[in-house]
């Protein structure tokens, strides 16, 4: 059996700060490829490198925010019980 390349990972920082959570903000741009298929670029301004920010800016398509209905609770409160 061939081993996959060793990719042992050190235990990275697993913390996400309150600020990172509260300011989480994703943008997207959708284009149409030459063969008609769609492609969507997702962009996280807070963590993107300069090259990624530049690449996203240069995509010729309208920028849209990713909205996840964060405040909408589709479940009645009494059914949201936790274990």
């Amino acid at each position, binding site marked *: 059996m061939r081993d996959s390349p060793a*990719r042992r990972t050190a235990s*990275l920082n697993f913390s996400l700060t309150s600020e990172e*959570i509260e300011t*989480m903000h*994703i943008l997207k741009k959708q284009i149409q490829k030459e063969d008609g298929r769609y*492609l969507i670029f*997702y962009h996280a301004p807070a*963590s993107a490198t300069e090259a990624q920010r530049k690449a*996203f800016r240069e995509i010729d398509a309208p920028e849209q925010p990713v909205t996840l209905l964060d405040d909408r609770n*589709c479940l009645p409160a009494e059914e949201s019980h936790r274990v």
Partner: protein
Amino acid sequence: MSELRWNPLLEEWVITATHRQDRTFFPPPDYNPLAPTQPGGFPTEIPSASYEIVVFENKFPSLRQSPPDPAIAGSDLTPVRPARGICEVICYTPDAEAELATLPVQKVHELIYVWTDRFLELGARDFVKYVYIFENKGKEIGVTLSHPHGQIYAYPFVPPIPRRELDAAHRYYQSTGRDLIGDVLQQELEDGRRLVAQNEAFVAVVPFFARYPYEVQIFPRAVRPALSDFNADERAALARILKTVIEKYNNLWQRSLPYIMLMHQRPTDGTSADYAYYRFHIEFYPPYRTPDKLKYLAGSEAGAGVFINDTLAEVTAETLRNTPPYLI
């Protein structure tokens, strides 16, 4: 040729997709169709010199938004339908050498937002009944492109396995008034022997009924039928526990562990209130049962649907629990 063919014996659809025979198969190292397109370089799937996360329609899809008419006539017994749906590829990072386990937790957090956005957008299409998010990782699973990526299938029907889970949960709710996954989770927490990791919003276990030796399922503590039901804190908690489980897998035998990762959640033919008896959850199926032995799906599994697990969930859970990183 591409169509849905009905199997009346199992009461399920089979997708034929003959064009997939020619899909990209272990391209040479210097040709990575999922890498960014570099100036002067060959054109890849992504027409940009850099990206963070991209999603695009699969070039060799099993389902299409505008499928051809079936090339074969069906019958009342074995009807056929156009293979209508959507198949997407999601590239996690432009780094071809990375994988979910090596990405910073912030990137996994961003990925959860992208998965949720796809669930909402695809689920809003009237012909889509189920959005299935999954990742095949490793040659042992059949992966032919090693660049870190997952897939999303938007089916025009609820697939058989989620259907069984949903029906079981519904029957349980009707007879007990409680949600089945919540009771399974409660039992695991009270027992404790099969816990792998947990945080304020999620619990990862090798389930009592695990079919694969190192199978892990991640359950939310609250009733959340879909990705879209999580709040911001829960999405962050999901990123942390997901990263924990995947890193444990890689640390288990000091190598990148192949797996199938999949998400089961409510269908998209209603709202979460319609499915308040069910919970979103993630399942992992790593194929190895020892460092050098694969668990094969042979006669009993493939033909009878009865899995034989050569290990005990309590033992493999303890091993994973004692493998870094630790979140308990």
